[in-house]
């Protein structure tokens, strides 16, 4: 089957090592995962995120609808503000994680994972029943590029009509970039400061605007980054990858996402009752961070042991290029959540020693990430 092409495909084909990622032709790296990862932590990297799902939700009951499908508090958003959250099934299992941006009282932009585009749209559509709301999938009509890193604002400012620094974290605003109409959000999934730019009215079949913006960003000093660095960056930041760390069999409470489940909302939302029950009973497992104290690389699916006893499974793992450590996320019984606790990871035939560490993020926030003090 022929792979789907994103807005930036032409650049990937010429410069990247292209793989099949959930049916999309996407670059896993251009120069290499490690230099691309470091560019984002130290200066500025850009990612093609045009494969993600982008949907407009509009109508007089759009707030009520989104508050019903999303666990976070959509009613609390003001114009130009977005929020990260999850959609749950009635049993509390996670359908997907997503960001919802309020453009106006009756118009929202909803952004979710590439691998879940068909599933999520069907799920949203099904849940519109009873609400005066209309959904429009614009994923193929709007380009999307992420600009990430401590120098992201400086780099983007070079090709933006107005200073992107005026946009606060998790806010979204219209800005002209390379002369084209865009919505620019101060969000991303690397742990760093940065932006996600939505390039309006740019069909994937003739994506001249997105390609121009991408090439302009490269010209002004941004490092093109592939999916490899995107994965290593989000892991180092302790961010959840749908399909690995969260899925329909995991709930936001055990995943460490209780902070996006807003029980103070007055209305019912999908999964509310189940999640209330889970909070009351307590979880049987919880997502923890592990760093290895011996050599080896933990990977998705490897088993975690306490001596002879198998206690859980790694959901994401790898090397952390900035920390120069092997790190992992795993679901373990809650008695193992305290930092310092020793565990072992089974790598092929060896039990390799590790310990529990804080993982959201794994790095020191005074040195890396959006909270760091700018020099």
């Amino acid at each position, binding site marked *: 089957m022929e792979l789907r092409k994103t807005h930036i495909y032409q650049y990937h084909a010429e410069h990247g090592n292209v793989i099949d990622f959930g049916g999309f032709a996407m670059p896993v*790296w251009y120069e290499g*995962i490690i230099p691309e990862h470091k560019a984002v932590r130290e200066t500025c990297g850009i990612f093609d995120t045009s494969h993600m799902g982008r949907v407009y939700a509009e109508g007089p009951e759009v707030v009520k609808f989104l508050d019903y499908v999303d666990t976070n508090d959509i009613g609390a958003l003001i114009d130009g503000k977005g929020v990260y959250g999850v959609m749950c099934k009635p049993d509390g299992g996670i359908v997907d994680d997503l960001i919802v941006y309020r453009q106006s009282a009756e118009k929202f932009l909803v952004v979710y994972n590439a691998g879940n585009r068909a599933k999520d749209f069907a799920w949203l559509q099904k849940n519109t029943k009873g609400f005066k709301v209309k959904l429009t999938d614009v994923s193929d009509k709007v380009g999307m590029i992420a600009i990430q890193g401590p120098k992201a604002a400086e780099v983007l400012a070079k090709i933006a009509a107005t200073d992107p620094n005026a946009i606060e974290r998790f806010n979204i605003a219209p800005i002209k970039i390379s002369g084209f109409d865009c919505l620019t959000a101060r969000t991303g999934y690397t742990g760093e400061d940065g932006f996600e730019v939505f390039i309006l009215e740019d069909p994937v079949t003739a994506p001249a605007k997105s390609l121009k913006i991408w090439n302009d960003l490269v010209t002004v000093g941004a490092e093109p980054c592939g999916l490899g660095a995107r994965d290593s960056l989000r892991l180092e930041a302790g961010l959840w990858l749908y399909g690995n760390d969260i899925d329909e069999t995991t709930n936001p409470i055990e995943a460490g996402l209780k902070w996006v489940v807003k029980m103070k909302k007055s209305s019912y939302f999908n999964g509310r009752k189940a999640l209330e029950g889970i909070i009351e009973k307590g979880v049987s497992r919880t997502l923890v961070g592990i760093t290895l104290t011996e050599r080896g690389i933990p990977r998705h699916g490897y088993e975690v042991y306490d001596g002879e006893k198998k206690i859980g499974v790694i959901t994401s793992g790898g*090397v952390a290029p900035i920390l120069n450590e092997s790190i992992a996320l795993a679901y373990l019984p809650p008695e193992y959540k305290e930092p310092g606790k020793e565990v072992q990871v089974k790598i092929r035939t060896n039990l390799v020693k590790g310990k529990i560490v804080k993982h959201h993020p794994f790095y020191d926030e005074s040195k890396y990430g959006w909270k760091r003090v700018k020099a």
Partner: protein
Amino acid sequence: MTDEVKVETGLYYTNEHEWAKPSEDIVVIGISDYAQSQLHEIVYVELPKKDAAIAQGEAIGAVESVKAVSDFYSPVTGTVFEVNEALMDSPEKINSDPYGEGWIAKVKPSNWDANVAKLMDAEKYKQHITTLKH
């Protein structure tokens, strides 16, 4: 990406891209230039165990990049005589010099003639990797 994959003559190769180089009474083993280029940035090597008895085709270690793990299958039967400890601190030597400084182990073979009959020479291996390119 460099499209020019090096295949060194005088070495013998497996389908899984390991190489074996007979040198007096020992055989040096490693992974090919094609294998390292596919893995890209190699960040960890699990070396075979010194003095271990190993069999041709047996998984005796692993080579890992940021993204992927590749088992290392022994191209030769015998006893591990020496392992390349330098790779523990500099696994990237496999990327930069797969047939030289990136060697993985030296093995005392016990039945080299039978082993080599199952390996490819440089010409055959070149043909093998062209069939894999898409």
